[in-house]
């Protein structure tokens, strides 16, 4: 489970397992993401987030090594205090790492909030998200910090988006350092 601040998401990855004949793809693995909110049934927001996560994961997972199989990623929101989508992205990446699925690169999620006065806040809390003019979430890959996914809520100019992107790419270094440390700790025990 990953929790920056108070937002907490639990991720579980199952696969590569047998796929239903209706869902199997002949040349690659079929990736499925299920996002469960803390209260209530999954709604339209969860479905759209699932699709964003699925497309990001498909870009990095080497699905061609496991054709006709199904990989399921289940995410459960434990608490939500802002920056939920980037928390889900980080949890998904750690689950992929932990399960030993072949990946071409790692990715991390960073949320930027654009304040009405133009300042950029990284990983905003729920209150800062409400006051912000625009919220941008980026999924950034570990290979040359390329952008895998960008999601915007609100309006901002192109220059502001570029600035947010640059800030997010710098912040991604910290997150990748965290991944490396946790993997090191895990392998230092055995």
């Amino acid at each position, binding site marked *: 489970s990953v929790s920056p601040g108070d937002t907490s998401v639990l991720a579980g990855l199952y696969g590569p397992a*047998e796929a239903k004949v209706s869902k199997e793809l002949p040349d690659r693995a079929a990736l499925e993401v299920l996002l469960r909110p803390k209260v209530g049934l999954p709604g339209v927001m969860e479905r759209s987030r699932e699709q964003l996560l699925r497309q990001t994961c498909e870009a990095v997972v080497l699905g061609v090594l496991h054709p006709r199989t199904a990989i399921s990623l289940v995410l459960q929101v434990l608490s939500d205090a802002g920056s939920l989508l980037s928390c889900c992205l980080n949890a998904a990446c750690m689950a992929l790492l932990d399960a*030993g699925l072949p990946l071409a690169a790692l990715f991390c999620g960073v949320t930027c909030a654009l304040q009405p006065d133009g300042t950029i806040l990284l990983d905003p809390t729920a209150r800062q998200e409400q006051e912000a003019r625009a919220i941008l979430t980026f999924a950034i890959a570990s290979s040359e910090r390329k952008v895998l996914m960008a999601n915007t809520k609100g309006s901002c100019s192109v220059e502001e988006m570029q600035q947010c992107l640059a800030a997010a790419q710098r912040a991604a270094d910290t997150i990748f350092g965290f991944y490396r440390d946790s993997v090191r700790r895990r392998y230092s025990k055995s």
Partner: protein
Amino acid sequence: MAAERGVAAEALVGQVVLPGDLLLLPAHYSEDAEGERLRLSAGAAPQARLLCGPGLRRSGAGLLVTKCGLLRHRPAGGGAYWVDSQQKRYVPVKGDHVIGIVTIKAGDVFRLDVGGSEPASLSYLAFEGATKRNRPNVQVGDLVYGQFVVANKDMEPEMVCIDSSGKSSGMGVIGQDGFLFKVSLGLIRKLLAPKCEIIQELSQLYPFELVLGMNGRIWVKAKTIQQTLIIVNILEACEYMTAEQRKQALAKLSGN
């Protein structure tokens, strides 16, 4: 950022590597592919080829890491690099010895669950001394220890219980009683290493029979049910215990 691309492979042996890391190989390996074609009568000995093991893929001039884990290197025979990673999910590999559970008996072929994405198939003739008249006695629910003869991503895996000379060499249906349980693949590899301390220490405790499958399954049988369960608990806990804790636990048990 440019400096992160491509670290020399030798520098990272024994350290943790993450997917997306690019490892550079020493120059004489990458020359090999072109050198072989141009060298007609050079008389120089051919370069040994580098083996790229699990967790690594060739990409351009180097190796791309695809799984997280410790990087290992074996210099013998041209050299081999691989990533030692921990996982619980098994992916069938040709030549692996595994424990399968018979799920369906369909005519001449048994379907076995080996813990992968597809059930493996086992022909009834693939046992020692089996002929069309003399069929082996295998029922649904039996445990079978065999090896993969076909296992790739495109085809259904196939198993046999004889080796290349027709002898069973320990493979076949596993007998009655005993206890089957699942552990992670890393623990199995540790137990299969030559002169494994865990097995030596356990054998001083009670006598027991042990079958290790590369798919994470272990079958144990000791004289009484209680002894069997004690051995099962120790093997499961071995994954997280250090050597000290294990010796203490065994000393407590042998004292009882």
